[in-house]
């Protein structure tokens, strides 16, 4: 076994781990896009209090928030092909990455729905009333008045969620995806230096997280300045 921890090896493994970073990032990106689209739909169901669909959204959000993502991942992985086979759609040959993206997208959607709902509610009703009073239609009032303000409210939570998503992608390896952590495990299995691989992966995640936090603070500041500047 030799030494317990060899810092030299961390540096040696680092480029190998970085070479799989694009998998992690593409999961985060695709899942966020999917999550925002689906989340908006869910939030609208809830805001409009559409009968039945509202209840479905409530149950869906509660399930997604109340169960571990690893469980959701395997349910999607094993369950979705079964479900789609009922309508004669065979997806067993799909890439595992697609299942991962679907899972994280569905999970993100639940969190996004709550964020979007909260931030739209968070815009004072007086804003909407004022918009109506100057003769704007419902759509105009939403698009021009409510949505920009809601975006500003939602941005910090969106950033937090994206960071959470980034961390959640670390579980994707359990489905056999070779992302950063998957690579660390592969290295560990072949060289018996598992710890060094993990530490390298941890450093990558830590750096990404700090970078993301910095980025979101920057965007928020810029957006705030721009919007207040416009007014």
């Amino acid at each position: 076994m030799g030494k317990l921890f060899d810092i030299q090896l961390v540096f040696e493994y680092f480029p190998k781990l970085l070479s799989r970073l694009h998998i992690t990032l593409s999961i985060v990106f695709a899942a966020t896009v999917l999550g925002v689209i689906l989340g908006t739909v869910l939030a609208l169901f809830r805001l409009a209090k559409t009968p039945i669909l509202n209840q479905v959204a409530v149950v869906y959000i509660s399930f997604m928030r109340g169960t571990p993502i690893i469980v959701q991942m395997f349910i999607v992985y094993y369950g979705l092909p079964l479900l789609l086979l009922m309508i004669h759609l065979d997806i067993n040959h799909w890439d595992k990455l697609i299942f991962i993206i679907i899972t994280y997208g569905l999970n993100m959607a639940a969190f996004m729905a709550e964020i979007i709902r909260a931030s739209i509610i968070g815009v004072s009703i007086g804003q909407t009333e004022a918009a109506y009073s100057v003769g704007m239609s419902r759509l105009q009032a939403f698009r021009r008045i409510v949505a920009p303000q809601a975006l500003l409210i939602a941005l910090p939570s969106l950033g937090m969620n994206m960071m959470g998503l980034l961390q959640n992608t670390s579980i994707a390896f359990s489905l056999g995806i070779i992302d950063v952590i998957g690579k660390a495990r592969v290295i560990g299995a072949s060289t018996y230096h598992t710890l060094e691989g993990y530490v390298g992966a941890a450093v990558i995640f830590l750096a990404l997280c700090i970078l993301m936090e910095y980025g979101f603070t920057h965007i928020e500041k810029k957006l705030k300045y721009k919007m207040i500047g416009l007014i």
Partner: protein
Amino acid sequence: MNFDFHFMMIAMKEAIRYTPVTLLLAFVPFVLGILLGTLIALVRLFHVRILGRLMQVYIVITKGIPVILQILIIYFVMVQGFDTIADRFHWSLHSKDINVIYVALTALFTVAVANISETIRGALMAVNRGQYEAAYSVGMTHNQVLRRIILPQALPAALPMLCSNLIGIMKSTSLVFMISVVDLMNAALITATANYKYLEAYVAAAIVYWVLNGTIEKISLILEKRFSVYRKEGVF
């Protein structure tokens, strides 16, 4: 291949049998996390010299690294580190004799402390600055200010977030099966190894987790309502 409800019930029964393990893994780090987290939050709030900075670094690191990595790293460090020390001092005790659940508890604890201390710090900072100043101005000491004025206001405010922290820890406990702790999820999976009905096992585990977390959420709502009533009667 069809969904086997009967097997799902078997898996769920097994999962429920091991639910206490999951609850233990969630509540022990949570309770200890509140104690230590409050201390860390206070250290950071009052800018205690070196310690405050140290805690900040600790929190950034723990929040930046995925839970699963922390669990795996702590597992390796504890197991291998222990063996190395045991070899050096010729102990008869080996890492194999130690229950992995302690490793899981340690890992979840380090994660929980960071999250909870951030929650409590947020709540402490949300208390109006004037409250601190007023308390100091009537001659209270640091201790009195905290005990009589700040904490009674901050803790109810922190309650919803604390509950969501607890739910987060509960969800993280599902990862300990990777270091072969038999918890709710692992129990459900073990029943499935014989016949490969993994979907049923996962659905069973999901339902149990859902019920657990749904209960916590309900309790959180009730408590929140209680405390907001108390608040309305106060100065606010």
